[in-house]
């Protein structure tokens, strides 16, 4: 059995190592050893679920060991991680999702997205909590809850329309005191579906010739708004997400295949495109919305 050590802190900055080890396991059974885990964000949780799915898809049994106690366990419970993990990892105890209190930082527990009906449910469900977090914590205008709901809808539809398989979404507020000196809202969306390159290949690969690959596919979708549908009305979702997140001075990145593409704000300088990452079969979208600061 291959053991994949999960670091004590897991978020969007270090999930690639987990993907790499999960993919390298081949048909070997995999134990994701997260007993040392102390801190995890929505991207980390969804990455664990995706890595487990990748390992299972290779024909191996995937198991997960979580810490026996501590704050992180309570947090995982509040985010509904055990319930989601039970559908991925063998022998994972299925515990009920704890309903967050009104004061909880959880905006959206880990939610499976497989159909458009799931997208409706998510949008309906986040209304009251999103209003409170966006206006009181991030100090966005009241109307931002509608814009946020539209973003959430579009980003979840990406799973339904392009992944050809189920995925998850989760969102959580954090106080990035040391990193940014501000509160942020982190929204993670992941699937282990076809990925951008495969989704767009039939419609666009020929035109790009030898240049076609994960980077080209991400650029085509992210920068040019291309989709696999030959319809000029399609492809607006990602474009509009980028525009709105930029207005809020947020971060948006998409990871698919061996590449990542991002719109990075000034507080998070990073290259717009990264290639040569460990292969991730589906797509992982990361949004970070920072608290508004007065001009």
């Amino acid at each position: 059995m291959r053991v994949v050590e999960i670091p004590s802190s897991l978020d969007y900055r270090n999930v690639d190592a987990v993907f790499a080890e999960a993919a390298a396991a081949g048909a070997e059974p995999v134990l994701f050893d997260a007993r040392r885990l102390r801190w995890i964000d929505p991207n980390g949780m969804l990455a664990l679920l995706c890595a487990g799915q990748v390992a299972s898809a290779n024909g191996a049994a995937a198991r997960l060991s979580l810490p026996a106690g501590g704050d992180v366990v309570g947090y995982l419970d509040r985010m509904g991680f055990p319930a989601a993990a039970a559908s991925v990892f063998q022998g994972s105890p299925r515990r009920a999702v704890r309903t967050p209190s009104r004061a909880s930082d959880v905006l959206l527990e880990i939610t499976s997205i497989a159909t458009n009906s799931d997208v409706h449910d998510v949008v309906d469900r986040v209304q009251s909590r999103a209003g409170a977090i966006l206006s009181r914590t991030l100090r966005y205008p009241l109307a931002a809850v509608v814009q946020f709901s539209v973003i959430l809808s579009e980003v979840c539809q990406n799973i339904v329309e392009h992944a050809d398989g189920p995925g998850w979404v989760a969102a959580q507020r954090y106080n990035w005191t040391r990193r940014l000196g501000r509160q942020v809202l982190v929204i993670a969306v992941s699937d282990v579906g076809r990925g951008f390159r495969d989704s767009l290949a039939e419609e666009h690969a020929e035109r790009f010739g030898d240049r076609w690959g994960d980077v080209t596919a991400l650029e085509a979708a992210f920068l040019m708004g291309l989709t696999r549908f030959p319809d000029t009305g399609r492809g607006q979702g990602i474009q509009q997400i980028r525009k709105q997140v930029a207005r809020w001075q947020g971060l948006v990145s998409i990871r698919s295949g061996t590449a990542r593409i991002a719109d990075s704000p000034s507080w998070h300088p990073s290259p717009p495109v990264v290639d040569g990452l460990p292969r991730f079969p589906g797509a992982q979208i990361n949004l970070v919305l920072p608290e508004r600061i007065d001009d």
Partner: protein
Amino acid sequence: MTERLAHGRHGDAATQPGAIDVAAIVTDAVASRGHNLVTRPTGRAVREAIEQRLALAAASPARKPPSPHVMLIDFTRVRILDFSCADEVVAKLLLRYQGPDRPGNIFFLFRAVDEMHRHAVEEVLERHGLAAVCDVGGGFQLLGPATPEERKAWDTLERCERIGPRDLAEALGELGEPLLIGLARRRLAYWSGNCGAAALSALARTR
């Protein structure tokens, strides 16, 4: 384009506007989920329900609307309108009724496209090169791409409500007629040849 409203002069024409409550369609035709208009299939289902309602009305002698007539697509009770739904319910509906093979001679107005909806509507119109007449809270406006001359002509017509053939040159200059005919081709105004032009909002108010 030279058209006549059903009863001749547009001032007394049978142009009682129809109105379609989009939120009611979301609830009835799609699912009982509140009034959030999100996801492409939902938008498509709502557009198809609107088209079906228009087709049924056209097929029913008792309810048959005059041709052409103005239909108000009312988003007043819709809370969230995402881009996929705006594309289906606004852009694709307009496209369906724009060409010569349109299923009915209907002009569309959109209501309660306030700031929360306006952005989504403008983006999808831009993407398709369409324009639409929308009530954004403070009266009807022309949304979507249009030349400055088209906008000026549309604004003038909206202000005057109707412009007869004799007043055309005074109101809009020599290019008034071709501009209004162009707006009518884009289904943004009504042009009746002998009787001049009418703003869609004026027709919608006409009993």
